[in-house]
């Protein structure tokens, strides 16, 4: 190859013989990632073997060159050597960009600290790949639970939805490999459709400041970073096997990556996970198994100043929902809540029967980027997602095996981003987004559509600028605007339409009448502005102060707008409101951080005020032929949340470390002067870690997780008359469960450490004391205890 180039260069240099031979070539050698200069780089002109080195400022000069085309080889101790072809006519300036491969490699193999920050002024929590490996058989929500200020809203123990500083569902944006997840995240019992094993690392931004991902992340943004392939000839992989006693199941995940020094790379990854019924300390949780199958493929080309990547993943998950939680009306609720054990307890089994969920998520992405001199790095991305959600209820007759809900949500997104370094201290990120989404609710279910058919168009544009005032002081400001148009076809029950006064408010949207239903065509427009401003200041080398204000605005989701009917899994009637406006949130967050390996900490207080916050709460009891049901209605109010998250880590003796976490959040409904429902209780985690690199990298950790009782909650209890006892019973759906403390043990050891492969053996025991407990944020807490003790064996082979 080089030989060919030489000949080519030789040929191309002939015409230049008679030309001016008094010109110079000068410029800088810089790192392509962060633009930092590279002193001590060597530049060799292949034709003449003339060599120079860059000075302390990364600058070089070749003088007395002839005009013509040269092949220049640039090398640096920390980078792979590269060749560049340069055409010289007159005195020429040319900067060369090299890539810090060694750092790139660190990211994959030993978890280096060089990450790109999503925002400059919000403190970000990150879970490294090594830590994620401990949750390999769990879910994304389980892993995120390990971060202070992040809890989860569960439906059983396999549907785990992240809650950031008290907010969840549509208020939390999840970015998976650069793609904003559109997986019907509005539902409280819809878990994110992400394979935890496909992420390189995970960052959590507790606020809406990361405007490049959207302006509606009222709660925050979770970024599952993709894994990066190094630019060198290599083949490596990882295989993990987990086996657990609780649920008597296992998971298997494997990944292999091939990369070339030309920049080409490809990788394949897959996960298989199967668990049977889980167990509390005292009984089997019937029908709580899970069967998950995922695969992903990635390929691309990574050059210094351009590249592209293709990515496709499929996520398929079948989840059983606790059999005893599927009940009829209020009379059934009384029995279920008042019974200390679930009313249906069967033998352990792997079969997943209704009620169950069966979800398939396809995600495809193509992305290309190019560095333009003087303009910056431009990237163009198209992504496609298709989410098919099937929910099965217990049904009768010929419908018994038919889904009660069958929604297909298809999303296309086009993103164009430009990251430009305007000057050495000023960086500008801009971008535009176009999105089309289509929801199709299959009428074959024989059940009225929970979410109507709709088409949604979104357009967005943002700009974020950060400016380094001094080496240790950065300020950041940004703005974003989004336009959303929804074209909906929704059938309303005539009785509901009239009881809501919609016949007078929206007579124009009725398309036709059919039986006791009305077909309507609401067309909704939302204009959402969002902004962020903040600053980071570092001092004494190890202290950092982050300050951020963010304004976010979120258009109501289809569930908030269009719900109208019985929600089986919640045993209640839920009503949305067609006239909802966007929610507008203001959040102020401050973080004080000390980065020190002996004693480091971060303290993160925040105050969050949300105008037109959409809450769902009970309003009345409705009589139906199936009995009485509590009616929950969405309403808009003004809410405020305040809280603090604390992390601290102290190395108090050789190989011994103490980690502490504390999170507190309080939520109030300002309009009604009452507490907000489902706020995470105060909790603290304290962990003692022993780590010794000399004994096969042994790591032993004992953790206590203490969750206080939530004492602030709205009273939503109601009464129901029971004919069989002729008494009126109180249904307590409000009182939170008692405080609890769980002990968890975690250990691992590296075996067979050779230069080429490493085997890690791990043993985890969760809920060591087999404590019976119920979690306020588990929607099935009314019916059953949470999980009992679990032994988990983990085998991990890196090669």
């Amino acid at each position: 190859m080089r030989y060919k180039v030489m000949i080519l260069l030789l040929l191309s240099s002939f015409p230049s013989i008679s030309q001016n031979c008094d010109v110079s070539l000068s410029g800088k050698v810089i790192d392509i990632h962060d633009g930092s200069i590279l002193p001590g780089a060597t530049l060799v002109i292949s034709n003449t073997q003339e060599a120079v080195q860059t000075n302390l400022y990364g600058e070089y000069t070749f003088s007395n060159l002839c005009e013509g085309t040269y092949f220049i080889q640039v090398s640096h101790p920390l980078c792979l050597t590269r060749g560049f072809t340069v055409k010289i006519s007159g005195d020429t300036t040319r900067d060369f960009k090299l890539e810090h491969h060694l750092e790139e490699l660190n990211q994959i193999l030993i978890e280096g600290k060089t990450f790109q920050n999503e925002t400059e002024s919000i403190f970000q929590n990150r879970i490294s790949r090594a830590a994620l490996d401990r949750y390999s058989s769990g879910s994304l929500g389980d892993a995120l639970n390990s971060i202070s200020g992040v809890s989860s809203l569960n439906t059983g123990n396999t549907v785990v939805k992240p809650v950031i500083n008290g907010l969840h569902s549509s208020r939390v944006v999840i970015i998976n490999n650069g793609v904003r997840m559109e997986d019907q995240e509005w539902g409280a019992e819809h878990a994110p459709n992400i394979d935890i094993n496909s992420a390189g690392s995970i960052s959590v931004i507790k606020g809406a400041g990361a405007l490049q991902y959207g302006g509606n992340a009222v709660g925050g943004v979770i970024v599952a970073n993709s894994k990066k392939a190094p630019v060198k000839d290599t083949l490596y992989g990882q295989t993990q096997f987990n086996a657990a006693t609780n649920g008597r199941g296992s998971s298997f995940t494997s990944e292999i990556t091939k990369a070339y020094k030309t920049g080409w790379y490809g990788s394949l990854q897959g996960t298989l996970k199967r668990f049977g019924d889980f167990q509390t300390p005292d009984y089997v949780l019937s029908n709580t198994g899970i069967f998950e199958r995922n695969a992903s493929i990635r390929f691309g080309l990574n050059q210094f100043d351009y590249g592209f990547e293709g990515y496709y993943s499929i996520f398929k998950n079948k989840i059983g929902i606790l059999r005893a939680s599927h009940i009829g009306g209020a009379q059934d609720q009384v029995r279920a809540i008042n019974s200390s054990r679930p009313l249906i307890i069967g033998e352990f089994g792997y079969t997943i029967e209704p009620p169950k969920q069966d979800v398939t998520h396809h995600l495809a992405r193509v992305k290309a980027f190019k560095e333009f001199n003087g303009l910056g790095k431009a990237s163009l991305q198209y992504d496609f997602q298709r989410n098919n959600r099937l929910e099965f209820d217990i049904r009768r007759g010929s419908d018994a095996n038919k889904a009660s809900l069958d929604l297909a949500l298809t999303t296309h997104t086009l993103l164009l981003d430009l990251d430009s370094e305007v000057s050495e201290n000023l960086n500008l990120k801009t971008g535009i987004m176009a999105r089309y989404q289509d929801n199709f609710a299959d009428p074959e279910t024989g059940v009225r559509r929970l979410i109507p058919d709709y088409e949604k168009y979104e357009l967005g544009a943002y700009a974020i600028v950060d400016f380094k005032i001094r080496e240790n002081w950065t300020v950041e400001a940004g703005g974003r605007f989004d336009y959303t148009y929804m074209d909906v076809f929704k059938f309303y029950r005539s009785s509901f339409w009239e009881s809501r006064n919609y016949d007078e408010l929206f007579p124009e949207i009725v398309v036709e009448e059919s039986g006791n239903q009305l077909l309507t065509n609401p067309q909704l427009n939302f204009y959402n502005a969002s902004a962020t401003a903040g600053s980071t200041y570092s001092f004494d080398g190890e202290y950092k102060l982050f300050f951020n204000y963010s304004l976010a605005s979120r258009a109501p989701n289809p569930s908030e707008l269009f719900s109208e009917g019985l929600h089986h899994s919640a045993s209640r009637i839920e009503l949305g409101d067609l006239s909802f406006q966007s929610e507008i949130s203001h959040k102020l967050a401050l973080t004080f951080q000390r980065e020190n390996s002996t004693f480091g900490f971060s303290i993160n207080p925040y105050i969050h005020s949300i105008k037109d916050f959409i809450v769902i709460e009970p309003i009345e009891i409705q009589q139906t032929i199936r009995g009485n049901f509590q009616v929950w209605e969405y309403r808009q109010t003004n809410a405020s949340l305040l809280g603090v998250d604390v992390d601290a880590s102290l190395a108090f003796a050789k190989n011994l470390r103490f980690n502490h976490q504390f999170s507190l959040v309080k939520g109030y409904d300002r309009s009604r002067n009452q507490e907000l429902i489902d706020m995470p209780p105060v909790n603290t985690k304290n962990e003692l870690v022993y780590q010794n690199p000399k004994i096969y990298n042994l790591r032993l950790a004992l953790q206590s997780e203490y969750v206080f009782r939530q004492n602030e909650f709205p009273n939503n209890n109601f009464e129901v008359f029971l004919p069989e006892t002729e008494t009126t019973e109180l249904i307590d759906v409000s009182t939170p469960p008692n405080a609890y403390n769980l002990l968890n043990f975690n250990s691992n050891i590296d075996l067979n450490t050779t230069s080429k492969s490493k085997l890690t053996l791990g043993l985890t025991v969760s809920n060591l004391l087999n404590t019976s407990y119920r979690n306020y944020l588990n929607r099935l807490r009314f019916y059953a205890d949470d999980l009992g003790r679990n032994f988990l064996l983990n085998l991990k082979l890196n090669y």
Partner: protein
Amino acid sequence: MNKFKFLSVLFFSGLLFTACSSDDDVPEPVNEEEVITTLTVSLSTDGSATPITLITRDLDGDGPNPPVITVSGNLAAGTTYNGTIVLLNETVTPPENITEEVEEEDDEHQFFYTVGSGLNVTTEYGNFDGDGNPLGTKFTLITGAASSGTLTFTLRHEPKKPNTGLADAGGETDLAASFNVTVE
């Protein structure tokens, strides 16, 4: 130049999006097939008297309107009535008879009769599933002395069978209807 290319790609994909969308496919309504809208209990004597009917009808299902309850007349004291229960889905035309489905899946269903205090009547199951456990779409009602009170019918789907009554049957309530009944 390249910026130009990007923008034109964006523009054309924008066109593609608009071209793909079709506004003219209006969705079809879903008529729920398994909904029970109407429960009719007929109480007849062996004689030729017109049966007494107890009806509850909830045409909008879990919509806002409450069920409409009608009782055609009073029961005679000291009489044995043959009871028959008919379940209908009247949201479809012609109405679908759900009783047949319930009787086919007799091992997964059971009716319960709850007699309120004050009302002097007793009930007995009139039909059973393959295992000899009660189903109860047919029953016998024997009235005592003149009295009045509530009579409640509850249909449970997938109850524990056999059971000792509503309290330990479990399962999911598919229907619950109370009638004010007078024996004279």
